[in-house]
């Protein structure tokens, strides 16, 4: 299996993506922002088509659009329930609107472009078996950057996520934190889904994290567990795909759902 370079590259790339997704996803699930994670990858589509229109590379367009959207998504809820009770439940619908608007925009870009890209679906399913050395190098670099960013953000982000009211009282700027995190997620999804597809990234973001959080692990254990589980899922999925010839993303998404189910059953049993 590892005899082929494309498989070696796929293992490296998916491992890299898995570790990043495991860490980022833990915070994403903790904060209840899976929808934002999903939306950001759609939003990247508008960016990619828009970039093609003005002659930029799709990756940079994707990253730009995602960062912009990250700021918007992080911005909306003030975080202070008392100042803005109406804004409280609106995170969810704002994501929906940004998602809809950017999909709409992507459609117009596509129409103006007169290029026969059906990138909407191409992006969705990605191409993890088609990763070359250059892409791999860039993936390592960008993943490293994202991990460093997350490392710097981790402590205040954890505080803001577990106890937002106290964090605000201690002077932590909740909105800035939310935006910074969303931008990080946006970058991570843009980078990862360009190489491995949205479906795979999304499964790795949500599945392992939801599993460890459902198990009730403490933050550090949860973070590590989530990264390890993501890695196991990614590599397991690749190996299974090799032997069964079903798409990698199928195995990974199925595995993610099964892990969560198992954790749920385990938790429900003693209670």
């Amino acid at each position, binding site marked *: 299996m590892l005899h082929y370079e494309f498989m070696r590259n796929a293992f490296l790339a998916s491992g890299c993506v898995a570790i990043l997704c495991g860490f980022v996803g833990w915070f994403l699930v*903790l*904060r*209840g922002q899976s929808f934002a994670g999903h939306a950001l990858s759609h939003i990247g589509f508008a960016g990619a088509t828009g970039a093609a229109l003005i002659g930029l590379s799709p990756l940079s367009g994707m990253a730009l659009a995602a960062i912009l959207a990250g700021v918007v998504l992080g911005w909306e809820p003030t975080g*202070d*329930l*008392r100042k803005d009770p109406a804004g409280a439940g609106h995170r969810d619908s704002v994501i929906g609107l940004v998602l809809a608007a950017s999909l709409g925009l992507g459609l117009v870009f596509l129409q103006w472009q007169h290029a026969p890209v059906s990138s909407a679906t191409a992006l969705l399913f990605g191409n993890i078996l088609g990763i070359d050395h250059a892409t791999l190098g860039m993936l390592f670099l960008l993943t490293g950057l994202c991990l460093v960013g997350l*490392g*710097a*953000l*981790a*402590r*205040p982000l*954890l*505080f*803001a*996520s*577990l*106890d*937002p*009211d*106290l*964090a*605000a*009282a*201690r*002077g*932590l700027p909740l909105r800035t934190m939310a935006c910074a995190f969303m931008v990080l997620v946006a970058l991570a999804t843009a980078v990862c889904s360009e190489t491995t597809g949205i479906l795979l990234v999304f499964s790795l973001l949500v599945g392992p994290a939801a599993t460890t*959080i459902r198990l*009730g692990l*403490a*933050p*550090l254990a949860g973070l590590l567990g989530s990264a390890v589980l993501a890695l196991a899922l990614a590599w397991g999925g690749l190996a299974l795909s090799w032997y069964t010839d079903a798409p990698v993303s199928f195995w990974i998404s199925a595995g993610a759902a099964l892990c969560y189910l198992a954790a749920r059953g385990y938790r429900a049993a003693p209670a």
Partner: protein
Amino acid sequence: MSETAPPRFLPGFSPRLSPRLSIELSPGSPPGSSPGTPALSFVDVTLAQGARILLEGACFSLPEGSLTVLTGANGHGKTTLFRTILGLHAPRKGEVRIFGRMPDTMRGAIGYLPQDRRLPAPQMTGRTLIASSWNGTRPGLPGWGRRIRQRVDGALSRAGALHLADRPLGQLSGGERQRVFLAGALLQSPRLLVLDEPLSGVDVQGQAEIVALLHDLCRRSGVTILLSCHGLDAVRGRADYRLAIAGQTLELSDAAL
């Protein structure tokens, strides 16, 4: 930090006058107090919510190491006043000083117990919640290790919440949760403790324990404490001052009155 400072309480401290009639107290030296700056001072502060004025031209200052009770009817602005101290609510007029400085710069020195708080992750344990606030505003990785654990355990056992610390917050009863939150407010050895109804939902014996703990903190560690509660029974004999909000004015008086 201030744990080793000498107690600053002065037993013979005389009751303050009603702020609107009062002589303006220069923020650095409340009469009869030690020469230090007051722990908290309001200078001509007007608080409002929307169009409604809650407090007009309030002036007072609390000496370091004192225990003050804030009373007032529902909706008269106790929580708003606390939020002003923490810089979460901007006063319409006037100035708030904490140890003589702007509230923004002193937030790290304040321990706060909000009246209600959201719990986005009720499946986490109290210990996790409290530990996450350790140096929570500084960038970096979440803290772990024996030192932090010791500090967290210390705060938990002071607040009488050690036996509750390893259960999911969502499973705790109201009073149990209140104790865990109180431990969180004590964690980073604050110089000023601002507690919004710390006794609500706590049983009678627990109320006495908490008041005794707070009294002890004032006397032994020189922490300045401002807490709100309904009715003075629980704090009788332990509080130094009483701040009463009534009809847009704030009255500071000796608690024994």
